[in-house]
């Protein structure tokens, strides 16, 4: 039985078309995956259903929920529907909760508002709902504040708020993108159970095809404000119809060629490195407790090799990276690059063998400098050579941009182009090792495939070694030949990537790999 029907929904903001002729149906209890790249209109579709589009948006077509056309409801009527009939959860669980209110009050507030319940009644239902999402008493009393919870637990509170009134339809907009892989698996399981057990329809918006593969009954693929294909999940993965879907699937399972260099010499040697942080005193006269952010870590990267480093947030990846880059001093052990020790006080010329590419294509550049000057920055280590202009042009060409781009500002480029510029900046002094710190995590799947190809090409032509740090296990699997798994400051497993992924030895590695969403292997072969 149809719960929601979008009929030729078209949305325009100013002169820009946002959604074009979007038609969808959703049955009670059904899970629909809505996938597409950033800017394809996924979130706008959700906001249109919620009636939360900006005031200047012009809408045509129909949004019919349980026989009621939402397009002709007043704002007052929509307020009644939101929460009770349709509900939504968002990507960032911290900003979705009020930091000044206890979790019990936040869940109860929805009930008091819509059902005019007494506070005590509302709180007892809030307790039930929090139990339902896995935050059980007495470990999670109603009096907790959001900052006392982890990211995954906060997202559970957001879900409890969303389901407090038994909505018929729940829209989840990238609900697990900000979460670690094991937490993501738990939250997805919870959402699936809720849909199955409470008969609630779920629209799961995501950029990650592997997430919908394990979750959705049907998948709709969006591109540039249009739905290019809708099909039952398995059919879509086995026999994608639209060329765009085919391209997305190909990019998601893309494996760039790997350079094999078995005879290479050690380039970076990390030996028994320990990095301590002093924590605040627990009481006035107690000694400072210490946090071992990196605990007795040893590994080697050989010339021309790709080494992966995976682990969840807070495992010490970033701290280790800072130490390797010579930005922080270590409290134990040594790091050597081409035989020279690395430390914050190392002489400048020794830094030339190592560069870095960061995750955030928006925060990696000084917005007030032109590309030419941005790319030139590492020349500070070597002194600017006389042919620096040619070198800039060459670097831009190598990463697939035009030499004319040198006089533009960074905000004129897309995310993928910015990552190319970041790579050009790293390449300009011809280092031997590039640290890729979540370098492709913020990119859309097709752009990511292109950047990975570029990295693979540059590795082959320049004999580069990569330290590839990521929380995304599928990417690490695709691009590295050897891999380290880090947990709570320690390396818990190390080995050739393929062996590590197929036969993980450590219990933690096994959990990580089991939690990683993936497209089932047998779906990839045509049925």
């Amino acid at each position, binding site marked *: 039985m149809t719960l929601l029907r979008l009929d030729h929904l078209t949305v325009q903001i100013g002169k820009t078309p946002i959604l074009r002729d979007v038609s969808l149906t959703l049955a009670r209890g059904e899970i629909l995956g809505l996938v597409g790249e950033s800017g394809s209109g996924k979130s706008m579709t959700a906001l249109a259903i919620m009636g939360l589009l900006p005031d200047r948006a012009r809408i045509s077509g129909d949004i019919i929920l349980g026989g009621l056309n939402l397009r002709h409801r007043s704002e007052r009527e929509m307020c009644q529907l939101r929460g009770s009939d349709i509900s939504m959860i968002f990507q960032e669980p911290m900003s979705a909760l009020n930091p000044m209110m206890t979790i019990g009050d936040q869940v109860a507030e929805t009930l008091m508002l819509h059902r005019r319940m007494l506070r005590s009644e509302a709180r007892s239902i809030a307790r039930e709902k929090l139990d339902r999402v896995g935050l059980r008493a007495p470990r999670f009393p109603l009096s907790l504040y959001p900052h006392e919870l982890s990211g995954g637990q906060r997202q559970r509170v957001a879900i409890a708020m969303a389901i407090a009134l038994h909505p018929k339809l729940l829209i989840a907009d990238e609900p697990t993108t900000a979460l670690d892989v094991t937490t993501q698996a738990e939250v997805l399981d919870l959402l699936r159970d809720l849909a199955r057990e409470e008969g609630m329809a779920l629209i799961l918006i995501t950029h990650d095809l592997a997430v919908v593969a394990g979750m959705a009954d049907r998948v709709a693929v969006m591109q540039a404000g249009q739905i290019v294909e809708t099909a039952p999940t398995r059919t879509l993965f086995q026999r994608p119809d639209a060329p765009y879907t085919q391209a997305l699937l190909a990019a998601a399972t893309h494996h760039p060629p790997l350079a094999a260099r078995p005879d290479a010499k050690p380039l970076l040697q990390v030996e028994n490195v320990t990095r301590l942080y002093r924590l605040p005193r627990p009481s006035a006269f107690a000694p400072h407790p210490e946090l071992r952010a990196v605990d007795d870590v040893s590994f080697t990267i050989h010339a021309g090799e790709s080494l992966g480093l995976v682990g969840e947030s807070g495992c010490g990846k970033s701290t280790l990276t800072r130490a390797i880059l010579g930005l922080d001093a270590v409290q134990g052990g040594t790091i050597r690059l081409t035989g020279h020790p690395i430390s914050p006080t190392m002489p400048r010329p020794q830094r030339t063998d190592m560069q870095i590419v960061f995750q955030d294509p928006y925060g990696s550049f000084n917005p007030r400098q032109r590309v030419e000057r941005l790319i030139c*920055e590492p020349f500070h280590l070597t002194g600017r050579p006389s042919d620096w202009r040619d070198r800039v042009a060459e670097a831009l060409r190598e990463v697939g941009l035009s030499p004319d781009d040198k006089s533009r500002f960074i905000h004129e480029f897309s995310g993928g182009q910015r990552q190319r510029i970041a790579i050009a900046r790293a390449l300009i002094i011809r280092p031997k090792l590039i640290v890729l710190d979540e370098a492709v995590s913020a990119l859309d799947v097709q752009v990511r495939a292109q950047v990975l190809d570029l990295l693979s090409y540059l590795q082959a032509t320049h004999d580069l070694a990569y330290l590839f740090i990521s929380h995304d296990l599928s990417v690490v699997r695709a691009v590295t030949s050897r891999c380290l798994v880090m947990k709570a400051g320690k390396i818990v497993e190390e080995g050739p990537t393929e062996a590590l992924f197929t036969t993980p030895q450590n219990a933690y590695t096994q959990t990580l790999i089991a939690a990683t969403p993936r497209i089932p292997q047998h779906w990839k072969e045509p049925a």
Partner: protein
Amino acid sequence: MKLSLIIGGCLSGMALLAALISLVWTPYDVTALDIAHKLQGPTAAHWLGTDHFGRDIASMLMTGARTSLAVALVAVTIGMGLGVPLGLWAAARRGSWLDEGIMRANDLIFAFPSLVIAILITATFGPSATNAIIAIGIFNIPVFARVTRAGALSLWQLDYIRAAQVAGKGRTRISGEHILPNIANLLIVQSTIQFSLGILAEAGLSYVGLGAQPPTPSWGRMLAEAQTMVTLAPHVAIMPGLAIVLTVLGLNLLGDGLRDALDPRLRGRLA
């Protein structure tokens, strides 16, 4: 170009122009008394009227602009010149004893009511425009240090600062090359606010007789002298009051406009 930039530029420009012209020419001599024509309203001979000594108000406003702008400008320069480097320094060494020392010294200055201390300084060292500048300038230092430090701290977390560190750049160089240009917006807006506050502070000090001394005209003193005659000849108070309001308004609009115009990310959208 943005409307705020145009209006702000015009209003501040008018004050500046009046001050500059007064260096070489004013309609009347501001020290010449003409009791016969006292408290006249605006006429063809005296565009803005005359005060209780028969002095030409237009001429006094022009000369007064010189005092107000000079005091505010030098005071802002003192505040920026010392406050910005201190703020950058504190941010670059976040959490160190240096950061603590600078910020606590700032708190110490903040803890005193500024106008009272300014009165104390000018009362101790004698009332003059120079002492007013120093007094106002000292209170600008912690304002700029705090704004600079707050802006810089958030930038120190960004990846391009890490990239600069990987490129072997030191803290001083990063502060100058990457931090300062990116907090220039903040500083420009803050300096126009401090500039207008400086004009108000100078007017305040002169109003209580601790700023510019007679016969040097000043907007604040003109207001002070006019207050007993508000009912008799309101224009004598309104004219300097308007000059202060319009200049302060103009400076604030100018600050807003400049902030947008100087940011390459916003520049494209202004056309």
